[in-house]
């Protein structure tokens, strides 16, 4: 952020916080955002209810953002407010600026939470959330709390609605993407045909996180501190989130720890079932794990396309494209039997 952007942010915060003055004491970009930027921001606020020093995160689109299915910052802020009010452990949403003229992009500020999110570290380093039974159960409880939010119980009105089943809705989206891609992908076609033939009908459509996985929550040495990255939230089948969390492609190499590489599937499901009061059909979760691999492969193709079209090519995007064969290999194994 340059000086004029920092001044604009200070002015905005002072007004939003009904303070006499707000100063940015420190501001640095955090690693990890291919689609969004997160800026660790220390504010000094004079006057009003927020008086004092405050650590926040400013979140805005990255200058090269390109995955077109994620929400904008105003929508993400509204989602954060909704789930925060519902009791989900998330960073407290503070102020939204939906005027892009201030810093060139819309942004919002949320309270900073402590800990780490990196999946590669978390699956190996037991100093973070050392009680992994407790962590897996807690994540199950958090997910069930998200899934208690429905169209009828929330004021969220910007998420896409559709008449088809959630599975068929995703199948249609994935096929549309493959049709737009310059190359054909027979393995993904094979997987999508399998998903089509086995698509479950469901009466239960809830808010889903859409990217609930290790890497998108934060833990410290005590345990969970917050669920992050709500830009893919949608109305959908709650089993989609469970399948995504448990899918082998999101275990960061710890394949035997089926709950996101950090714990046992049984502990995670126990937490979920206890909180939701619903029994989970394991065979349906298996279906959604196939869907998870297909969805990740489609996203990886999108990232590879971003690399090809980028002015400043990112090695991370390029390598993501090279994950497709591994995902396809797993898909072929998962769909081996009819």
């Amino acid at each position, binding site marked *: 952020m340059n000086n004029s952007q920092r001044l604009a942010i200070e002015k905005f915060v002072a007004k939003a916080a009904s303070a006499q003055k707000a100063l940015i004491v420190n501001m640095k970009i955090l*690693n990890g955002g291919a689609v969004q930027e997160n800026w660790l921001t220390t504010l000094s606020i004079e006057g009003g209810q927020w008086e004092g020093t405050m650590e926040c995160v400013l979140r805005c689109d990255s200058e090269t953002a390109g995955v077109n299915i994620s929400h904008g910052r105003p929508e993400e802020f509204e989602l954060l407010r909704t789930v925060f009010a519902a009791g989900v452990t998330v960073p407290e949403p503070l102020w939204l600026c939906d005027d892009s003229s201030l810093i060139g992009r819309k942004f919002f500020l949320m309270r900073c939470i402590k800990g780490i999110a990196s999946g590669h570290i978390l699956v190996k380093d037991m100093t973070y959330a050392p009680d992994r039974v407790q962590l897996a159960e807690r994540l199950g409880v958090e997910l069930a709390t998200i899934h208690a939010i429905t169209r009828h119980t929330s004021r969220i009105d910007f998420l896409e609605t559709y008449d088809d089943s959630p599975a068929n809705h995703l199948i249609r989206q994935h*096929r549309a993407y*493959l049709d737009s891609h310059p*190359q*054909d*992908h*027979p*393995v993904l*076609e*094979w997987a*999508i*045909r399998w998903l089509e*033939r086995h698509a479950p009908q469901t009466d239960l459509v809830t808010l889903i996180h859409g990217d609930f996985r290790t890497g998108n929550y934060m833990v410290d040495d005590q345990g969970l501190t917050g669920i992050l990255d709500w830009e893919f939230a949608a109305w959908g089948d709650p089993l989609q989130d469970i399948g995504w969390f448990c899918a082998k492609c999101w275990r960061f190499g710890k394949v035997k720890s089926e709950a996101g590489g950090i714990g046992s599937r049984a502990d995670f499901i126990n937490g979920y079932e206890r909180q939701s009061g619903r029994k989970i059909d394991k065979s349906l979760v298996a279906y959604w794990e196939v869907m998870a691999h297909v969805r990740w492969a489609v996203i990886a193709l999108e990232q590879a396309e971003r690399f090809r079209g980028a002015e400043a090519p990112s*090695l*991370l995007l*390029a*390598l993501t494209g*090279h*994950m*497709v*064969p*591994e995902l*396809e*290999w797993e898909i*072929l194994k998962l769909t081996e039997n*009819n």
Partner: protein
Amino acid sequence: MRPLPSTADLLQSTSHMLKEHFLSTASASDRILLRMAMNAISIAERQLRSGETHDSQQAESMRQTLSNPLLSINDGNQELARLIREGKADHGEALHQAVKDHLKLVTRIRLSESNPKVLDS
């Protein structure tokens, strides 16, 4: 004829140097970037070493699967995708086993370049 060592050998040596001289002393965040760079170099090296062999294997398997000796890989993939989407390779259909075997072969080949460790696990 190009001077030796080959491009693949140069890439392998570069990767080896990064590992031996920089990886152990790099900060945690730089280690991630170094590993990404080494991974990219290894993929490029494997692609160079395989040359045209993998394309030939894929094309041959495609032609046998679709019983068409003149198909290019691109045209074959397009035809295969269409057949699969139309259900012509579903379980119980005549093409099912041949298509499945072909997809496995092709994916194994692609994986041998992008991430061969997966094939060992």
